[in-house]
């Protein structure tokens, strides 16, 4: 199935602003992030600490709802989901 990934600011510069990612049915959000990180060491470094935990400043949204970091392992994605990845905001 296809998941849309949107990325912003420094993550946009690494991931591109919007990409369609082919993933297996039943993949979790954590699985999606690992899949894209495995393809590119720059993405891996941007997303993960050395001990493979997600960096504190990575913010995730699923269909424009913010995701709690503790739920990343358990959220199962569905066809057409939009995952947004961005760093802490700096507007105003």
């Amino acid at each position, binding site marked *: 199935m296809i998941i849309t990934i*949107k990325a*912003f*600011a*420094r993550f*946009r510069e690494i991931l591109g602003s919007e990409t369609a990612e082919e993933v297996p049915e039943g993949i979790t959000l954590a699985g999606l992030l690992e899949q894209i990180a495995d393809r590119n060491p720059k993405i891996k470094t941007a997303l993960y600490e050395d001990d493979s935990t997600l960096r*504190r*400043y990575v*913010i995730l*949204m699923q269909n*424009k709802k913010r995701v709690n970091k503790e739920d990343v392992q358990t959220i199962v994605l569905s066809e057409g989901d939009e995952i*947004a990845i*961005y*760093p*802490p*905001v*700096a*507007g*105003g």
Partner: protein
Amino acid sequence: MVISITQEDFDVNAMIQSRKAPEVGGLVSFVGIVRDDGITKIELEAFEEAALEELNLIKDEAFEKYPLMSVDIIHRIGMLNVGDNLLLILVAAGHRKEAFDGCEYILERIKETVQIWKKEFTEDGERWVPGEHH
């Protein structure tokens, strides 16, 4: 009421004029400006759909917390120079206290959660402005 993320500049006079109503006693505005922190220009990027939703949520929160008559928020994006207008928050209320409190509340909330980022350009290169909140 205007809630907008735009490349266009804004007109504070016209906005104030259009927000006058019989019970409005005071309007507080915050105009954010691109400050010269040794930069040449700045580029603002937004996750527009999410940021607009968030701004509308913040507006609703402000109305719940304070007795306000109107709230307008215009956040500019794109490439801006030092001295350019960056943000307008205009709050109208019956009395001064709630207008000040409402405007300041909205600004703090924007800095916390609205999906907008800034990249600064200097003579030596560029850098993303670190966000204050997580």
